[in-house]
């Protein structure tokens, strides 16, 4: 594949977390009856006018700051004119040559040095309504509940070089936007949408190849798969002497392939012009600084702090700070815990595997962070063994009880009573004279066998460190 270089640019639309729409006071919500959150303004009734939601500007600026964008001192809304039934006015209020912000970047942390993805712009626009197709009945229906919901469109430069890059970028972007609380970034609810531009060029060439636009990707994995398919499709096409056609293609998740959009595409001529109904936005230094001062710690700074303060490695710190809720979970747990490394392992390995299995977000974890700290404490104080801890953790998830209660209820406390353990050791030596003699004569390997038998006798509850000591004392004496 090295004959070609992959060039990918992404356009992401995120829904800003406002309570009301961008240009009218209809509530922003998800689901519900069609056309139940509409008013004369977002239905484009004759005579109605838009008035800008201040919060959407502030959220846009927050996002732009987190994305290292230059905030425009002067921005303006334009009308993008085209006819489509989900458009209440047959134009979309968007930003064109005077966007809210431009020229930013996002850094994808990599151990060997982060990858910087340039951003061309991040601008505000209104969402359209939604078309619902009733194929059997032979018509389509329009629902304007989404019409006028505030969106931030974030456009990368063609800086991504592989589908994996694209996947990583989306994760980093989502993390940033969630951290600064501008969007829920929930792909299922449509609050995070991604379209991609893909092209190939001969390695070493500067000139961009013909691109296709890929749409209809409903998860980050879908983006990665769609791009992988599209990259190989284009490569094969070029190798076999064909040419890539500039077109829009839709991803089909079932076949994991992209297909050209069937509906006739006309050459777009959006006839952008400044919306006379909306006056310019001028963001002065004071306003920007106010917003900037309220910004929380960004993920990259947080990862650095986790490495420093909790003495975690690059990888662990990266995983824990990949999602603001996860980072908060860890920090809450860490407040009642001295062993950060073990805590991090339990969270990133056991807990996350469990959550992934049941597709549960960290916010709804069945195990509260305090319980994980408690579990790590029990291990560290020798109350339970690491092995027992795994079963305790499983019970914590299922029964939603603190680990100490589980340990008490089921008598899982480690046996650290020497006299009791000595009796078991005697019994095991008596039953296995061969290995006992082997160890006595210097074969260290035999110790493991004997310890194992003792553990089995005690159903895992014996303190392995003590058992070790007792056997050594007994057989080397």
């Amino acid at each position, binding site marked *: 594949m090295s004959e070609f270089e992959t060039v990918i640019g992404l356009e992401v639309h995120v829904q800003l977390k406002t309570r009301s729409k961008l240009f009218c006071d209809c509530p922003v919500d998800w689901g519900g009856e069609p056309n139940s959150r509409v008013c004369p303004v977002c239905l484009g*009734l004759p005579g109605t*006018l838009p008035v800008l939601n201040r919060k959407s500007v502030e959220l846009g600026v927050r996002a732009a700051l987190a994305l290292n964008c230059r905030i425009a001192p002067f921005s303006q809304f334009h009308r993008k004119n085209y006819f489509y039934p989900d458009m209440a006015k047959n134009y979309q209020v968007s930003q064109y040559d005077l966007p809210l912000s431009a020229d930013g970047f996002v850094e994808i942390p990599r151990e060997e040095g982060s990858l910087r993805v340039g951003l061309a712009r991040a601008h505000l626009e209104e969402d359209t309504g939604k078309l619902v197709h009733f194929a059997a009945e032979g018509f389509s229906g329009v629902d304007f509940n989404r019409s006028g919901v505030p969106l931030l469109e974030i456009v990368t430069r063609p800086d991504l070089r592989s589908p994996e890059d694209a996947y990583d970028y989306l994760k980093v972007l989502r993390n940033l936007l969630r951290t600064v609380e501008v969007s829920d970034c929930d792909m299922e609810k449509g609050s995070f949408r991604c379209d991609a531009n893909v092209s190939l060029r001969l390695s070493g060439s500067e000139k961009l190849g013909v691109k296709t636009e890929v749409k209809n990707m409903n998860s980050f994995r879908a983006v990665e798969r769609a791009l992988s398919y599209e990259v190989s499709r284009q490569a094969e096409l070029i190798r076999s002497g064909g040419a890539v056609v500039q077109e829009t293609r839709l991803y089909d998740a079932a076949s994991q392939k992209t297909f050209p959009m069937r509906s006739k595409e006309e050459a777009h001529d959006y006839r952008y012009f400044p919306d006379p109904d909306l006056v310019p936005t001028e963001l002065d230094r004071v306003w920007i600084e106010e917003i900037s001062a309220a910004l929380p710690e960004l993920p990259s700074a947080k990862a650095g702090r986790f490495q420093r303060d909790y003495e975690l490695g690059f990888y662990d710190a990266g995983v824990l700070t990949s999602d603001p809720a996860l980072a908060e979970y860890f920090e809450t747990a860490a407040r009642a815990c001295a062993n950060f490394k073990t805590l991090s392992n339990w969270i990133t390995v056991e807990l996350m595997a469990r959550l992934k299995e049941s597709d549960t977000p960290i916010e709804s974890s069945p195990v509260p962070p305090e319980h994980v700290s408690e579990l790590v404490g029990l291990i560290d104080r020798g109350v339970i063994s690491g092995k027992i801890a795994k079963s305790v953790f499983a019970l914590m998830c299922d029964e939603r009880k603190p680990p100490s209660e589980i340990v008490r209820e089921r008598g899982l406390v480690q046996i650290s009573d020497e006299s009791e353990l000595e009796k078991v050791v005697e019994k095991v030596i008596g039953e296995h004279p061969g290995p006992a003699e082997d160890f006595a004569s210097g074969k260290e390997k035999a110790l493991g066998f004997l310890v194992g038998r003792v553990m089995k006798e005690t159903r895992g509850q014996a303190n392995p460190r003590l058992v070790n000591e007792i056997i050594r004392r007994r057989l080397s004496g």
Partner: protein
Amino acid sequence: MPAFQALNRLSAHELAARIAAGRATATAAVRDCLERIEKTDRRLNAFVRVDREEALEEAGRIDRELAAGRNPGPLAGVPVALKDLFCVKGREVTCCSRILEGFISPYDATVARKLKDAGAVILGSTNMDEFAMGSSTENSARGPARNPWDLERVPGGSSGGSAAALAADQTVAAFGTDTGGSVRQPAAFCGVAGLKPTYGRVSRYGLVAYASSLDQAGPFGKDVEDLALLLEVIAGHDPRDATSAPEPVPRYRDFLQADPASLTLGLPSRDTLKGMDREVAAAFRAAVDTYAALGAKFVEVELSSLEYAVACYYIVSTAEASSNLARFDGIRYGRRAPGVADLLELFEKSRAEGFGEEVKRRVLLGTYVLSAGYYEAYYGRALRIRRLIKNDFDSALAGCDCVILPTAPIPAFRLGEKIDDPLQMYLTDLFTISINLAGVPAVSINCGFTGGGLPVGLQLVAAPFREDNLIRAAALFEGATAHHLKKPALDDR
């Protein structure tokens, strides 16, 4: 015998005073108007909808309020007519277009709301050029309105129905919108007073938009005091219109008495005024002489950019219109072409059947000037020239209280006379459209008649938010002349 005069013949301030004093009722006023409409409107076609029952009901409510000692507002019981593009909740609003047939507004325009709150009674909707595109009210899906001074002539446009209705005493006050002269030019043609406020002075919320950066609602009045009163009611900041100005609203009626010596008028050079009809020019010169005789001072002003105003206007306004009118597609409201097979047909046929020829012409022109490859040459260029025009008015108005201009270069023309030559029709807007481009306020008052008995309009233009100067200058002229008192001899049979 003024005591027995039908109430519809009164001015708004006279009627309001009589009703407030208990010497007339709102119901009687509305009945007189309805009767007059009944008698005359078959010939004038000024109204496209008369809300008889609603108006009588509302008048009754106001009479009961008054009888109970409450004050329903400064326009209590005053019948008003609204151009057919003001949204009034529960009433059909069509902009005299087929495409909006049957559209019942579910909400009130801010102006309509303010009028209701002031106690005005809405009689109904008046005829207009479709979507306010025209200068004659001939481009109406409801047939042309006619000029009460000469039924063979147009009342002007686009708010021709409002002007004609008022001139014929079918109503006591009327409202229109003015995008390029659509209040002032019909006011001039029909011999009534009409005012276009500063852009941003009156809320545009609920007025079906033609060209958003130019549109303003304005009153028609039987005299200047009416304009002052009506403007006070409808002006003011509206949080629903982001382009409405947060300027306080003065009591405009306080400016009806003016000292002529304190008035400086800006008179454009002869060159600017070329191309005027001979009789209009004579009436205009006479008006200038009247002011001079009263003691007003004159300075000469340079408005050389007027030369470009028509071209600039027809780019800016049509570009905005092409986008504003895109929403009329037969999906959410209005009229859909029957039997459409697919989406493209739904759009193309509904709009082809729904729009009249002038609307099509302007939407196409506006689409063209914004389209790829032409934007800079037309729209971008027009926006630069718009600044040139604004700069011209800024400097002219820096040295005087009002610029004085004719309203239209010609008096009311015959029906059909210009309908097939759109460019010639557009050129009759020469003196009004530059005012919209500059965003400044202007008033048109009657300054005399042609030999054939057609009214001629005089236009006064002031700096932004200086409507007080318009009222001062116009009241001064009106106080010294009697043109505004003359009524058309409309045969009542």
